[in-house]
């Protein structure tokens, strides 16, 4: 099996589900890694490792979804529940602009009162004040929640957000795109078809998006494979995904508890992502959940991008995982591994090589 899969990856013919499952469950780490590394070098022959200067702004931690894997959300009456005032958000984005940042990743809980007008006014003001910062914000679950709350259809909601300044949508909230898993870990969150529908609509409106996968909670290997193929199939019809970002469930402070995925499991899933998603250009390493050492090793297991510099990150940190890297450290990490570090924007245009 390994030999025939290797042959397919060399000829750039797409893998089948049973082949992907074999790689995940039976093949050894280095064999999968070598194939992914070869594909990554073929797709990115310039030897660059990219990153974007960005910031997370979590506008609220009040969330009706209350996912069992999440340590960030609060109920409305919690003593540390919050909604950031516009002025606080402007100040945070100003700090991002001061650091020559180009991407704003604004995500929050599913708040019971924040309707589309709140986001429209905010995005319009952010566009006016910070034209150099791309608003790369709101996951599919938030888009659907805002639409429902505002009496809009999802496409209407997306169009209005886009008109107000939303340029692209991050791929969060995908977790594992298999409803049996979602029922167990996030029973109140949208199903996988709704997640896909928002992405397809965003792509149809000309917005690029990313796709994520949070693994290591309750899913089976088959579910990981299904997730990857669902992303590949959406991409075949829309071509709108810029990057895929697998990251690992962080159990600290969550209702679900348990352990996080090990280093070997992470690298294998990362490499498998590179192999299955031959139609998605970029694979991001998750230094936020894996740490700098593992992120560097990831560059040999299919990853060509280190994601954002994350001047602020709250959600993973709430689960007890708080890796921090400066821009200098990110550049050093890529260079030490033999790559040319390069700053990019959200559209993956290269802004500067180091």
């Amino acid at each position, binding site marked *: 099996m390994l030999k025939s899969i290797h042959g397919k990856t060399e000829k750039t013919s797409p893998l089948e589900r049973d082949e992907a499952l074999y790689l995940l469950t039976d093949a050894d780490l280095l064999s999968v890694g070598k194939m992914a590394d070869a594909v990554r070098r073929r797709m990115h022959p310039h030897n660059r490792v990219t990153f974007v200067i960005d910031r997370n702004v979590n506008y609220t931690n009040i969330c009706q979804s209350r996912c069992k894997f999440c340590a960030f959300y609060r109920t409305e009456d919690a003593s540390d529940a919050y909604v950031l005032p516009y002025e606080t958000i402007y100040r945070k984005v100003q700090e991002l602009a001061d650091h020559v940042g180009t991407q704003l990743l604004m995500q929050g809980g599913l708040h019971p009162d924040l309707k589309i007008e709140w986001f429209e006014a905010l995005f319009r003001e952010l566009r006016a004040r910070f034209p150099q910062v791309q608003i790369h914000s709101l996951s599919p679950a938030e888009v659907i929640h805002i639409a429902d709350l505002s009496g809009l259809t999802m496409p209407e909601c997306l169009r209005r957000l886009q008109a107000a300044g939303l340029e692209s949508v991050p791929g969060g909230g995908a977790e594992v795109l298999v409803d049996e898993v979602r029922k167990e870990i996030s029973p109140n969150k949208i199903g996988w078809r709704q997640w896909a529908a928002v992405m397809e609509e965003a792509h149809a409106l000309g917005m690029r998006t990313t796709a994520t996968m949070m693994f290591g909670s309750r899913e089976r290997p088959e579910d990981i494979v299904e997730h990857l193929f669902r992303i590949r199939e959406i991409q075949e019809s829309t071509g709108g995904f810029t990057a895929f970002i697998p990251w690992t469930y962080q159990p600290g402070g969550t209702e679900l508890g348990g352990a996080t995925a*090990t280093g070997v499991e992470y690298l294998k899933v990362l490499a498998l992502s590179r192999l299955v998603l031959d139609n998605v250009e970029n694979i991001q390493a998750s230094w936020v959940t894996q740490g700098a050492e593992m992120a560097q*090793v990831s560059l040999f297991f299919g990853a060509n991008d280190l994601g954002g510099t994350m001047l602020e990150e709250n959600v993973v940190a709430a689960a007890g995982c708080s890796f921090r890297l400066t821009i200098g450290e990110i550049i050093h990490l890529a260079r030490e591994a033999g790559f040319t570090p390069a700053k990019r924007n959200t559209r993956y245009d290269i802004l500067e090589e180091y």
Partner: protein
Amino acid sequence: MIDLFHTIRSKIKTGARISDEETLALFESRDLLAIGELAALANRKINGEKVYFNVNRHINYTNICVNRCTFCAFSKGVEDEGCYTLALNDILEKVAEANAAGATEIHIVGGLHPDLPFDFYLEMIAAIRSDNPGLHVKAFTAVELDYFARITNQDVALVISELKEAGLGSMPGGGAEILRREVRDKICPEKISGERWLEIIEQAHRAGLKTNATMLFGHLENYEDRVDHLRRLRDLQDRTSGFQAFIPLAFQPDNTRIPGAKGVGGVDALKTLAISRIYLDNFMHIKGYWVMLGLKIAQVALAFGVNDLDGTVVEEKIGHDAGAATPQALGKEEILDMIRKAGKVPVERDTLYNELKSY
């Protein structure tokens, strides 16, 4: 480069040795996964799919040290805040706890204390052994043995035989750092020379004590220094066969005094472990010391030629004073889980690599 990997692959298959030049070329290569494959091949020939661990406990009897190695964040002077020396009773209490928790090994190292007499160490070993006859005591680096010889004005061979008589079972491999003088002059000028380290280890081997060997890497040394270090260890092992495991230690920069040192990247750590496995064909075991590597890299290292994960450790101080972000102890279940999820077979061992239990 393809030729290099091809040559080394056939050498591993036929049991031929790789040269220093080839080793240097591996260090300079960027092809991490090809190096890993060679190491995995070399390891599989020796150890199959087995990965060893033990249930052990570290005890650092004092952090007071007359040396001031610049890479060390553990040592203190007698007047310094935070300095400590454990009383014999405290040590025995920790050992009793470990024994009750199923430990098979006590790992004891400490600073070079200005006042403790040699009898303190002899009594410590003898008391541990008499309280816990089943426990293996693995203690003292060559640096400590040299110091004991100096404070007693006697030959190190005599020191070794007295410790052995008191119950010392084997020695760890610390204090090797980088054996080459030019590097030692910069990072540990007061410490014994690399030559003296090798001489004392050779004496220990001749006295029937097994030891490990370490290499502290990722500070001021270059690749040539690492290859030189490996060559000297391989040569000594050819003469004595007294080394059990080689343990590359990733330098931890926090609270140390090496300007500009950044710590070891994941790629360099894996490469160094893998190249060690390929070069040291006369060492049975390459240990991924999880305290310094981090749990994730230590586990990934099992695909890069590493076949030993050390043990449960309990109360690690030296790496943690230098900023190691790992826990101070691991449970047996966690170690088993790490090994299994790497697709390997966990084997609990004793200090001398007798297999106690396969899982």
